[in-house]
C-alpha cells in the first residue's frame, strides 16, 4: 500500500520556521521512486541539520548505491531544528524524508551515519518524532530496523540500547548485504519476526546486533565480559573493508542543495585509509589499509560529477591528500584540464611540508591565495613525538616560509590541548612557534601584513587507537592552559596583532569523551540529557555542559561509575574495554605497545608509515585479508579524456580556490 506524503501537514508549518527550504527536498539529482515498485526501503538519516548532513560523503555514496538497485528505494532524512520540532509535535507531523516526505516509521531500515558522538541525542529526537520506540527491545516487526554506521559507530555501546544493528567500516557492500537479507526475510513471510531478521543479519558475522550480547560487570565497575546470549552469533564482529575503489566510483551525481550548506562542492575521495600512525587519530586507525583511487578514475569522476552538479569547486578528499602516490600528476593535470573554466580545486592540506605548498600553488593557479592550513597538532617537538606526528620545527618554518614566499598571506595552524604527558610548557611552546612563523614570514616577504592563526581544541581519547587507555585531561586544566596560551600570544607587542587565536573550551570535550569511550550504562545518561532537552550537542549555542553533568549524576547515582570514571581515568592493559568485541583488525597488543612507547620516560618511539616501510605489525591486513592498494599507475589525464569533447570544455566556465 502506498505511504502517504506528510507534505500537506508540513506545508502550513514551513512559513513559521527558519530556513524552510531545508525541509522541502526537490533538489537536482534527488531520487523519488514509487513506493510500491520497491520491496526494500531505506531511510538514510544524518543526525544533524540539513546544512551539515547534505554534503556528507557517506550518505551521498549510500544513497546512490542503494537507489541504483532495482526494487530498492533510499530517501534522506535530517535532524529538524527545535523550532520545527516544536511545531511537528504540536501538529502531530512525524519525522519525514525530504525526498518524498514519507514518514520515517514506514521504512524497512533507518540507516544512521554517525560522524561524531555529539549526534546521539539527535537520534533520540528523530526516533521519537518518527513514532519508533527509543529502546530496541520495545520495537516490533512493524518498526524499521535502526542501524548505525560511521566512525562513531566503532564504539556504539553508549547507544546500543537504542540501536538494532551496527555496521563497522565501509558501507558500500554492507548496505547491499543487509538489503539482500531484508528482502529474503520479507519474501519468506518474515520468519521469526523482528528477531528473525536480526538473527539473519548477525549470522553474517559482520553486522553487530547489540541485544544478542550480554555485558557482565565487576564490582569495581569494570566490564567482566561481553558474551553472545544466543547461538549463531559470533563472539566478535568484523569491520567491512572495500577493496578496489575504482570499481565503486561514488558519488557520481550527488544531490545539489537549494539551501545553503557547509560545503558546496563536488568531492571525490582520492584514497581511503591512512597509515601515518598518528596516535590520537581514530580515523587513521579504523580505516586501514590505504586504498587509492587511480588518477584515471579520479579524472572521470571529476568530469562527470562537475557536469552533473554544476558545482564550481572540486574537493580532493582523503585523510591526508598529499600522500596519494600520484597527487602531483592529479593536481597538475586537473588544473590544466580546467584552466579557464572557473572551476576551483581544493584539497585539505594538513601535511606540514613544502611539497604541500607546491600543490596548493598548482591548485590555486590564477587565483587569490588567501589561506593555507597545516596541522602540527602538538606545540613542542616532544609532544609531536608522543603523538607520532613527526614534524620538526625546521620543517614547519621551511614550509610556512615557502607558503608566504609564494603569495599566501595567511597560515592556519591546528593544535590539540590535553594530550597524554602534556605539561604547561608544551602548550606555551605554541606561542613561540607562532611568533617564529610570523618572523620567518616577514623576513621572507618583507611585508608586515602576513598572518598566522592558531586554532586549538581539547583532545578526546578515542576507541581503537593507542590512546584508548589514556586519561582524558580535565577540562579545567585544558582551559587554564588555553588561557595562558592566549595571554602569551596577546602579550607580545611585536607579533600579537599578526597572530589570531581560536579555541574550543574544555567542557564539551569531556562529554564527547564520555560518549566516545562509554559503555552501555551511558545510555541512561544520554536519555536523561535528552529528556532534559539536549539537542544539537555539536552546536555551542545548544550544548549545555551543566545539563550533561546533571544527567550523568542522576543516571549513574548509586553505581560505581561516574563521568570522571569514564573520562579522566587511565585504563590498564587487563581492563576489558567496551569495544573489545568489535574488530577493526588492529592487534590489541600492538596498540598497547604503541601506547607504552608513546609515554615512555626515555622519550616516545617512532612508528613508520607502512606505505613506504612494509610492515604488518598493526595486524589489520592479516586479520582482515586486505592489502595496501597504491599506485603509481603512470597514467596522465588529458583534457580529451576528462571531457567528452572540446565543446564541453569550452562551456565549463574556473574559480581558483585557496586551500582551506
Amino acid at each position, binding site marked *: 500500500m502506498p505511504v502517504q506524503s506528510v507534505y500537506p501537514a508540513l506545508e502550513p508549518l514551513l512559513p513559521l520556521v527558519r530556513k524552510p*527550504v531545508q525541509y*522541502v527536498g526537490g533538489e537536482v539529482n534527488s531520487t523519488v521512486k514509487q513506493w510500491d515498485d520497491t520491496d526494500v526501503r531505506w531511510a538514510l538519516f544524518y543526525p544533524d541539520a540539513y546544512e551539515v548532513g547534505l554534503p556528507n560523503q557517506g550518505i551521498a555514496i549510500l544513497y546512490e548505491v542503494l537507489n541504483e538497485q532495482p526494487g530498492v528505494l533510499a530517501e534522506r532524512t535530517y535532524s529538524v531544528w527545535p523550532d520545527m520540532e516544536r511545531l511537528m509535535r504540536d501538529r502531530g507531523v512525524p519525522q519525514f524524508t525530504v525526498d518524498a516526505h514519507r514518514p520515517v516509521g514506514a521504512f524497512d531500515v533507518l540507516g544512521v551515519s554517525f560522524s561524531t558522538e555529539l549526534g546521539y541525542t539527535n537520534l533520540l529526537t528523530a526516533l521519537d518524532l518518527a513514532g519508533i520506540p527509543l529502546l530496541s527491545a520495545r520495537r516490533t516487526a512493524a518498526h524499521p530496523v535502526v542501524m548505525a554506521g560511521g566512525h562513531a559507530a566503532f564504539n556504539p555501546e553508549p547507544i546500543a540500547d537504542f540501536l538494532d544493528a551496527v555496521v563497522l567500516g565501509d558501507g558500500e557492500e554492507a548496505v547491499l548485504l543487509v538489503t539482500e537479507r531484508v528482502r529474503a526475510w520479507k519474501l519468506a513471510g518474515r520468519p521469526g519476526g523482528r528477531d528473525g531478521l536480526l538473527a539473519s543479519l548477525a549470522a553474517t558475522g559482520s553486522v553487530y546486533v547489540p541485544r544478542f550480547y550480554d555485558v557482565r560487570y565487576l564490582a569495581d565497575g569494570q566490564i567482566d565480559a561481553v558474551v553472545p546470549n544466543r547461538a549463531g552469533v559470533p563472539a566478535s564482529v568484523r569491520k567491512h573493508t572495500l577493496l578496489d575503489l575504482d570499481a565503486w566510483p561514488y558519488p557520481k551525481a550527488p544531490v545539489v542543495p537549494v539551501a545553503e550548506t557547509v560545503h558546496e562542492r563536488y568531492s571525490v575521495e582520492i584514497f581511503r585509509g591512512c597509515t601515518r600512525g598518528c596516535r590520537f587519530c581514530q580515523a587513521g586507525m579504523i580505516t586501514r589499509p590505504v586504498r587509492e583511487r587511480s588518477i584515471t578514475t579520479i579524472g572521470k569522476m571529476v568530469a562527470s560529477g562537475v557536469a552533473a552538479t*554544476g558545482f*564550481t569547486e572540486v574537493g580532493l578528499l582523503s585523510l591526508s591528500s598529499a600522500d596519494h602516490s600520484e597527487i602531483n600528476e592529479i593536481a597538475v593535470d586537473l588544473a590544466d584540464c580546467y584552466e579557464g573554466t572557473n572551476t576551483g580545486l581544493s584539497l585539505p592540506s594538513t601535511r606540514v611540508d613544502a611539497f604541500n605548498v607546491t600543490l596548493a600553488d598548482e591548485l590555486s593557479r590564477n*587565483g587569490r591565495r588567501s589561506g593555507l592550513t597545516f596541522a602540527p597538532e602538538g606545540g613542542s617537538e616532544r609532544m609531536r613525538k608522543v603523538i607520532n606526528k613527526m614534524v620538526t620545527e625546521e620543517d614547519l618554518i621551511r614550509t610556512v616560509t615557502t607558503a608566504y614566499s609564494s*603569495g599566501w*598571506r595567511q597560515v592556519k595552524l591546528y593544535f590539540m590541548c590535553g594530550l597524554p604527558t602534556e605539561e604547561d610548557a608544551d602548550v606555551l611552546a605554541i606561542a613561540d612557534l607562532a611568533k617564529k612563523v610570523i618572523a620567518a614570514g616577514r623576513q621572507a616577504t618583507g611585508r608586515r601584513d602576513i598572518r598566522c592563526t592558531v586554532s586549538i581544541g581539547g583532545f578526546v581519547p578515542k576507541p581503537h587507537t593507542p590512546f584508548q587507555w589514556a586519561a582524558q585531561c580535565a577540562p579545567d586544566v585544558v582551559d587554564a592552559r588555553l588561557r595562558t596560551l592566549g595571554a602569551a600570544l596577546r602579550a607580545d607587542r611585536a607579533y600579537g596583532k599578526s597572530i589570531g587565536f581560536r579555541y574550543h573550551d574544555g567542557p564539551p570535550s569531556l562529554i564527547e569523551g564520555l560518549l566516545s569511550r562509554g559503555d552501555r550504562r551511558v545510555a541512561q545518561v544520554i536519555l536523561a540529557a535528552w529528556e532534559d532537552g539536549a539537542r544539537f550537542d555539536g552546536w555551542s549555542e545548544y550544548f549545555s555542559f551543566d545539563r550533561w553533568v546533571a544527567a550523568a549524576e542522576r543516571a549513574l547515582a548509586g553505581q560505581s561509575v561516574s563521568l570522571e570514571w569514564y573520562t579522566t581515568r587511565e585504563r590498564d592493559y587487563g581492563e576489558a574495554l567496551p569495544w573489545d568485541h568489535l574488530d577493526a583488525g588492529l592487534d590489541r597488543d600492538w596498540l598497547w605497545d604503541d601506547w607504552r612507547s608513546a609515554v615512555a620516560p626515555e622519550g616516545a618511539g617512532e612508528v613508520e608509515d607502512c606505505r613506504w616501510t612494509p610492515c604488518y605489525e598493526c595486524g589489520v591486513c592479516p586479520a582482515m585479508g586486505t592489502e595496501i592498494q597504491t599506485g603509481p599507475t603512470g597514467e596522465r589525464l588529458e583534457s580529451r579524456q576528462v571531457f567528452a569533447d572540446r565543446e564541453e570544455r569550452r*562551456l*565549463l566556465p574556473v574559480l581558483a580556490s585557496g586551500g582551506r
Partner: protein
Amino acid sequence: MIVSNSVVDGAEGTSPRSGTPNGDKPLPAVQHLLVRYAKRGKMRFASHRDVARAFERGVRRAGLPIAHSAGFTPHPKISYAGGAPTGVASEAEYLSLALTSRNDAAAVRERLNVALPDGIDVIDVAEDAGGLPASRLTASEWQVVLPGLSLDSVGPAVRRFLALEHAPVERLTNKGMRRMDARSAVVTIDVRGNVGDYGGTDDDAALRIVMRHTVPAVRPDDVLTALHEISGVTPTAPPLMTRLAQGSLGESGVVDP
C-alpha cells in the same frame, strides 16, 4: 530593488590581494537574455539567494556560455531583480543573462528547464538590451489566498483599508524593525473567490492586489498585517501568496517589462 551578483572581488577582510590574475581576460558578453521564471510549489520556500545559487549551477549544468566578471573570484554575469520573498510563490520573476556567444532563446529556455530544480521553471526567454534596472520593474500583481476566511469577512475589511489615507505597519527585518505605509503602495485590491491553482480550498477568500514597488519595500504580507489591525481578520493558516505579474503600471494593470 536590484540585487546583482556582479561583485568584482569577494576578498576576505584580512587577506590583501597578492597580485593580479595572470589568466586570459574574460570573454566579452555578446548577447543579453531576459529570463522570466516561476517559483512554484515547494520552491516557493527558496530565498532569493537560494534561487541565485540554483541559477548559477543550472547555467553551468545547461552548458550555457555565461560571461564572467574579471578579478580573482570571477562571477557569472547574472543580474537579478526584486525576487519574491521566502515563502511567496511567483509566476513573474525576472533575471538577465550575459552570454559570450549567441544562442537561440527558445533553446536556452529548454536547456535551463532541464538543468534547474522542478519548481524553478523558466517561462520565457527573450533577447534584451541587457541589465535589469529597477525602472523596468515598478509594480506587481499578487494573488493572496486566505485560508479559512470567507468573502463576507474579508470584503468589509478591504473596503475600510482602501478608504484610509495611510496604514502604518511594522515588520521585523534582518536590519531590525521597519515601519512602512502599507496603504501608499497599494493601487487596487480586488476581493474574489479562490479560483486558479494557487493553493487553499474553493471556500477560501482570495485577494488580487496591485502594488507599486516602494522603498522600503511594502509586501503583500504587510497589507495583510494592516487588514488584521483594522478589523481583526486572521486566516486559520498562513496565507498563500503568489506574484502573478511584474513590470510597469499601465492603464489596466501591470504590464510585462
